[in-house]
C-alpha cells in the first residue's frame, strides 16, 4: 500500500493586508489533499492556501523605461498574479523593455508574459516630453 505523507505548514495569506496566519495540514500525494485549515478570516484564504502549496503566485510590480517621456520611468504590474518561480525571468524581460510616450494607465506593455496568461500593464500615465 502507498503511504501518504501528512504535512503541516503555517502559511501567511498575502491576499489582503490582514495577513492571516493560516495553519494547514495536507496530504502531499500526486494530488494534494487539504485535511485541515485554521486561521483564515475569509474564504479567499482557502483558495490562497491551495495555490500556495502547489505553485505560489505573486503580482509583479516594477518600472520600465520610457522614451520621449516627461519622466524616464513608468511603473507597471501584472494584471494577474504570476508564478513566483518565474519572477526572476520576468524581471529580466522587463529590465530590457522600453515603451514610447505617451503611456496611459492600463496600457498593455507586454501581452501574456512568458505564457502565464497575465499581461503587464502600465500603472501610471506618462505624457510626451514637451
Amino acid at each position, binding site marked *: 500500500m502507498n503511504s501518504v505523507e501528512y504535512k503541516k505548514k503555517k502559511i*501567511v495569506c498575502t491576499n489582503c493586508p490582514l495577513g492571516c*496566519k493560516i495553519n494547514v495540514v495536507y496530504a502531499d500525494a500526486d494530488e494534494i489533499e487539504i485535511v485541515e485549515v485554521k486561521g483564515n478570516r475569509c474564504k479567499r484564504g482557502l483558495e490562497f492556501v491551495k495555490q500556495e502549496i502547489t505553485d*505560489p503566485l505573486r*503580482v509583479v*510590480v*516594477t518600472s520600465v523605461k520610457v522614451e520621449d517621456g516627461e519622466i524616464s520611468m513608468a*511603473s507597471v504590474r501584472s494584471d494577474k498574479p504570476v508564478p513566483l518561480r518565474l519572477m526572476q525571468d520576468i524581471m529580466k524581460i522587463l529590465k530590457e523593455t522600453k515603451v514610447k510616450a505617451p503611456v496611459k494607465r492600463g496600457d498593455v506593455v507586454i501581452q501574456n508574459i512568458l505564457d502565464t496568461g497575465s499581461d503587464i500593464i502600465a500603472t501610471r500615465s506618462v505624457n510626451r516630453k514637451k
Partner: protein
Amino acid sequence: MKYETDVVVLGGGGGGMAAAKAADKNGANVILIEREEENGGVLNQCIHNGFGIHYYRKDLTGPEFKETLQEELANTNIKILNSAFVLNVNKDKQLTFVNHKGIHEIKTKALVMATGARERHFNSLAVPGDRVAGIFTAGVAQKYINLQNLKPANSALIVGSGDIGLIMARRLHLEGIEVKGVVEILPYPGGLERNVQQCLRDYNIPLYLSHTVTRVEGNKRLSKVYVSQVDENRQVIPNTEKVFNVDALITSVGLIPLTDPVKFVETGPGFITSNTNQTSEDWIFAAGNCTVVFDLVDYVSREGEKAGKYAALYSQNQYFPEQKVKVKKGKNINILHPMYIDPNERTKLYLRVSKTFKRAEVTVEPLGIKMIEEEARPSEMIEISIKPFKDKNLKEIEVSARELG
C-alpha cells in the same frame, strides 16, 4: 497675486486630494497647494500594490490610487496649484506661498493641513563610524530606483523592518542588488506579516531580529557594516558581532509627521486633532501622516475626507463643536488618534499598543466598549468605531489594553 477662498488644502498626497474632494462636495471653494510638479506625495514612488483595498475596494498600486483620485478631482471646481511651496501660515488666516512666478498670498476661511511625514535619518541613530557615501533612507533609494532608473548599490543591508524596509528589500533584490539582510532591533518584525512573507521569505532574505547596527566603515564609500545582537533592554550582547561587506546601508527607521509651516497649534509630535480632524486652532484641520503615521493610505484618505468635510462646514459657519471630550492614553497604549472627541459626531479611533500581545482586550471607558484583538502588535494599527454619545458631563475617556490569559 492675491487669492481668496473658503478652504485651502496644504499638501497634495492621498490625504490632501481626498480632503479637497470632500470640501468641494460640501460646497466650499477649494484651493489645493502642492510643492511638487504633480500631486500624489509618496504614492508616486510606491509602485507596489496593496493600496485602496478599503477605500476603493480594489488592490491598486500607489500610482493607480493617485490617478484614480486625480480623475475624481478633475470633475470638480478645485483650483490646484502645483510647484507651489507654502512658506508661512499666519493666525489671521493668511498663507504665503512661492512658485516660479514669485510670492503670493491667500486669504482663506479654513485650512486643511495634509503635509505628510518625513523620513527619520541615519544620523538620528548616533551610530559611530565614518560618514561615508552609500547610506540612504529607504525613500531616497525608492526614488532612485522607481522614478530615476538609477542603481544605488551592488549589495545592501537594510535597517528597520517596517513595511517600507521590507518592500525595499524585495525591490532591491529584484533589481539585482544583493540584499544581505534586514536588521531589526525589536524582537518582532515592524511591518505587516504579509510583507515579511512576500518580501523576505519569498526570496530567502534573512531577517535579524533583536539586532542593531553598531558601526559603519568605509573609505569615501561604505564598505562594512557591523551588526550585533541586543538583549531585552536593547543593550548590545558582547561577542555577537557580524560583519557585512556591503556598499549600501538603507535605513527605514521611522517617519516623523511634518507640521511645518504651522507653528501655533497643539502638536505631539504630529497635529493633535479631534474626531472631526479639527486642531487646537478652530479654523485649521489636519489629516494623514502629519497627524499620526498611518499604516494604509486608505485610512489617510478617509481621514482626509473628514477633514475636508468639516473644514467646508466650518467655512460656511455650519460647524461649531460645543463640547470636546479628551481621549486619554491608558495602560499599554502607545499611539492614539484622535485626542479629542466631539460627542455629537461619530469617531474612528486609531491606536497602537505599546508591546506585543497574544490576545489583547482593548477597552474604552466609561463608554463600555471592549474589543478583543488576536496578536496585537505595535506595528499594526487597531481601529475602533465609536457612535455619537450625548453625555454633557463627560470630560474624559480612557483607552487601555491588557493581556487576556
